């Protein structure tokens, strides 16, 4: 008797630990006034497809019901929440603050922190497109990791328009830009240098490559501003400056960096994005950002910002923590 690949049982002691993590998260979600929702574990693929994007759609478990309708096991929760808001909650006054802790499924090669069945928990703030909303989302994520006992977690921020604005100054076609962004995102500096060769003057190219190797704060944003060629990119830089300012007011200044390589592989992000991580684990602890075009794809004209984490990854990080010397205090 064997389990399906990428699934697991939870014995009583294990489940107690998992439930404790979920309880801490629920407490944080309630403190920030987010109401919990659930959607079906499976739903019609055609009602999610509009939001998922190709990368996630490819990892989605699909099957046909007896009538031949294509059914998807929910691969993540942001799209189902967008679907829910744009149908049953159309009349609700904005902003909407919704939270969830639900199982999700992705067809992955099982590895540390990546199972085919996992528990996704997160927040979505629907309505305002303001700096306040972005800051609320980011700070609630920081507080969630703090409450979980991961107070040394560090957060990297980006805005998806910045790298587009920087690459817009080069002689690259659409495919070249996509290719260069892929290399930036993997921080594959050697191949990036080769790809950009001949697309601009050498000093500019070297500055762009440096940008992809650098994490920083205001100084990095200044360098990016000098290289940025689009209004959207400059607006993105302004938004990041605003977020760093708000974070400083709240005492989070030394928890944040800007990293322009942070291009999360989910296609619906349109604005600021972030990830939280800690030294002991080789994967992000949480991540999120702004996705203003997702709800309109479901016919509901509203912006949104949100983040999520995988509960199992938090358990691994906490376990790893106990086995090691505490890392550098913040």
């Amino acid at each position, binding site marked *: 008797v064997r389990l399906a690949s990428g699934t697991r049982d939870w014995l009583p002691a294990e489940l107690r630990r998992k439930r404790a993590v979920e309880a801490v998260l629920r407490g944080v979600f309630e403190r920030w006034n987010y109401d919990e929702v659930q959607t079906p574990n499976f739903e019609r693929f055609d009602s999610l497809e509009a939001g998922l994007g190709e990368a996630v759609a490819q990892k989605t478990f699909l099957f046909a019901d007896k009538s031949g309708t294509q059914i998807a096991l929910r691969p993540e929760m942001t799209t189902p929440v967008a679907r829910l808001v744009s149908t049953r909650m159309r009349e609700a006054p904005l902003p909407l603050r919704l939270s969830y802790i639900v199982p999700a499924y992705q067809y992955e090669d099982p590895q*540390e922190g990546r199972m085919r069945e996992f528990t996704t928990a997160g927040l979505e703030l629907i309505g305002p497109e303001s700096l306040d909303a972005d800051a609320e989302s980011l700070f609630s994520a920081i507080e969630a990791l703090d409450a979980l006992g991961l107070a040394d977690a*560090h957060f990297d921020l980006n805005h998806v328009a910045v790298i587009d604005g920087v690459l817009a100054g080069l002689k690259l076609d659409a495919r070249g830009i996509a290719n260069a962004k892929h290399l930036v995102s993997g*921080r*594959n500096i050697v*191949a990036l240098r080769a790809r950009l060769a001949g697309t601009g003057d050498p000093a500019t190219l070297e500055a762009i490559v440096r940008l992809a190797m650098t*994490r920083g704060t205001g100084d990095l944003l200044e360098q990016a501003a000098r290289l940025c060629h689009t209004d959207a990119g400059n607006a993105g830089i302004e938004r990041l400056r605003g977020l760093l300012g708000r974070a400083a007011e709240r005492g989070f200044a030394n928890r944040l960096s800007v990293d322009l390589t942070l291009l999360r592989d989910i296609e619906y992000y349109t604005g600021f994005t972030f990830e939280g991580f800690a030294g002991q684990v*080789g994967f992000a602890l949480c991540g999120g950002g702004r996705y203003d075009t997702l709800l309109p794809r479901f016919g509901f004209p509203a912006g949104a910002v949100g983040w999520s984490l995988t509960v199992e990854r938090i358990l691994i990080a906490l376990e790893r923590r106990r086995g090691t010397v505490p890392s550098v205090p913040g």
Partner: protein
Amino acid sequence: MSAGSGLTVAIPKGALYDESVAHLRAAGIEVPGDPGRRLEVTTPDGTRVLLLRPADVPAYVEFGAADCGIVGADVLWEAAGVVCELADLAFGACRLVVAARRVDRYHEGAPLPTFLRVATKFERTAETYFADRDLPVQLIKLHGSVELGPLVGLADLIVDLVATGNTLREHDLVVVDEIASSTARFVVNPVRFRAKYDDITALLRKLDAAVRA
């Protein structure tokens, strides 16, 4: 940082070892020239250096047992995992080539067999190369002495690394096509790069200076 970087660096034993050690020394990390049978050494500046089989370097970096490492690009082509290539260290140059027996005259344009048998240690790279050309092939994975393949009729072609070309010449094999060229790379774990940004960036700067010197 006061006493040393506190970094764990993975380096390959074998062909790239001496140059890797020379580069680390130029960056102030005193790795012994002859480590004997040790698998890890802690240098006077506090850096932990792991001495690994070349093919194992990507895994140690990917899973964070090492923060960063030195490894040939040829090894990275075959590794499935995710590491960031931050710098080309420019030593250990070699080429990955398709080679065949001189008498088969494939290098002069003689028609290839209907169905190619290809012996190689570089399965992933070879598969991509032939798939890109829509050529049906049977890949035969070998672990050493690939040049023997065509001589005894195991394979029509080989895909193998060439540094000087001596091995090919000794066996009367010739290059049919060049797939890629390889040099040593400085690689990092993407999350460790963020967590130990200052230390890794400092080491990278010193390695870069050594390359340019």
